């Protein structure tokens, strides 16, 4: 058959596209369970990381089951509502109005004390950023925090996922002396804020840093009623 005829070209193109589509669909379908499992394990690792427990891919499940003693969903009024805290899709919740959001809470027991772990979700420079923040039972002192991102610039915005940045959050407080929710300021060197509410921003990663600040602020605000109830 003539390799340059229209008919040949059309048949060739169609056959190739169908073949490639089939191969990719089969691959995606068969790999899905593995990928879903990886994502679930990663989520458990992240939750544990926010209470300063390092878990690897193999022991994350086991440690999670031991340490996370309770999890539930609250609404903006602080009332407990139906739902599974682990499967709440933060991206979808963030698109809703605050009153309609499902707000997951994970309780973790460390040396007999309960730490409260809250998920965070916001926007960086190139895409979503997210994380978990854990509070002592006074609902004021930050016990630990972990952040992750989809596509922030390596060496710049991506530094939010490093220990050095996250360690700064430990021991900071989110309420000011008048009992008002102050949240955390991710500050550049020329910004002033009370030291107990301030962490250093990432040089070269200003937009990611500020995105992280507003993420923490907005998500903590959603839990305000819950905090007041527990305090």
């Amino acid at each position, binding site marked *: 058959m003539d*390799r*340059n005829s229209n008919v*040949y*070209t059309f048949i*060739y*193109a169609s056959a*190739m*596209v169908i073949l*490639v589509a089939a*191969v*990719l669909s089969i*691959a*995606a379908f068969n*790999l899905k369970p*593995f*990928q879903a499992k*990886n*994502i679930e394990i*990663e989520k458990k690792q992240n939750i544990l990381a926010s209470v300063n427990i390092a878990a690897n*891919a193999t022991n994350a499940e086991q440690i999670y089951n031991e340490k996370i003693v309770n999890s539930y969903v609250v609404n903006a009024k602080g009332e407990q509502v139906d739902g599974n805290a682990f499967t709440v899709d933060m991206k979808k919740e963030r698109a809703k109005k605050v009153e309609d959001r499902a707000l997951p809470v994970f309780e973790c027991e460390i040396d007999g004390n309960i730490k409260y772990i809250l998920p965070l979700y916001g926007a960086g420079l*190139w895409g979503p950023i997210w994380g978990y923040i854990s509070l002592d039972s006074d609902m004021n002192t930050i016990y630990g925090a972990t952040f992750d991102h*989809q*596509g922030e*610039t*390596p*060496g*710049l915005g991506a530094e939010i996922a490093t220990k050095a940045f996250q360690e700064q959050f430990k021991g900071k407080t989110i309420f000011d002396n008048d009992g008002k929710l102050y949240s955390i300021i991710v500050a550049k060197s020329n910004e002033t804020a009370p030291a107990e509410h301030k962490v250093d921003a990432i*040089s*070269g990663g200003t937009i990611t840093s500020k995105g992280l600040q507003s993420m923490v602020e907005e998500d903590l605000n959603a839990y305000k009623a819950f905090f007041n109830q527990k305090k």
Partner: protein
Amino acid sequence: MSEKEALFSKKNLGLLSNPLNSDNPITVQVLGICSALAVTAQLKPAIVMAIAVTAVVAFANVIISLLRNTIPNRIRIIVQLVVIAALVILVDQVLKAFVYDVSKQLSVFVGLIITNCILMGRLEAFALGNKPWPSLLDGIGNGAGYGAILVIIGFFRELLGSGSLFGYKLIPESWYIANGGFYSNNGMMILPPMALITVGVIIWVQRSKNRKLIED
């Protein structure tokens, strides 16, 4: 051809080694510059990117070489693109399923392999006119030539820009000005323009060693 060529004849070995020096895709052909700037702020993503590109270019070369006598001339670029895109998605899916942490490290850059000019360049210039075995060697050679440059750039950028390699701090904390020392990381190194200048320095060094490359 009456005589069968040996698998590792001189000519075939040349396909492997030439891209490392006198026919380097980045420093001589000046292809694939964009990703060489994007992923080299740290050493580890540079290395994984080098491996991923090598795998994709080698397989794509073999597939296109096998198909070379059936591809309609008018849509050959699209055929090449589909093969590359399919392989890249496959690599991405496999990484996500089995080496999730590496896949996370590379994030968007895996998808960006599709836009790497070296791939289209090798398919168009080599695989369309050669048998599968030489095409495979050519793919591996070019991937390695690309990777070598990436690793060199990544090494200097991470060392001078962040004072670390593979994320491990190499410069003692006490050297830093903040701690009363004399040293400060060069923030310019983590920005893409310095990667371009580093590429320029590598080209300079290479040409002063290899005089054949100097044009009149």
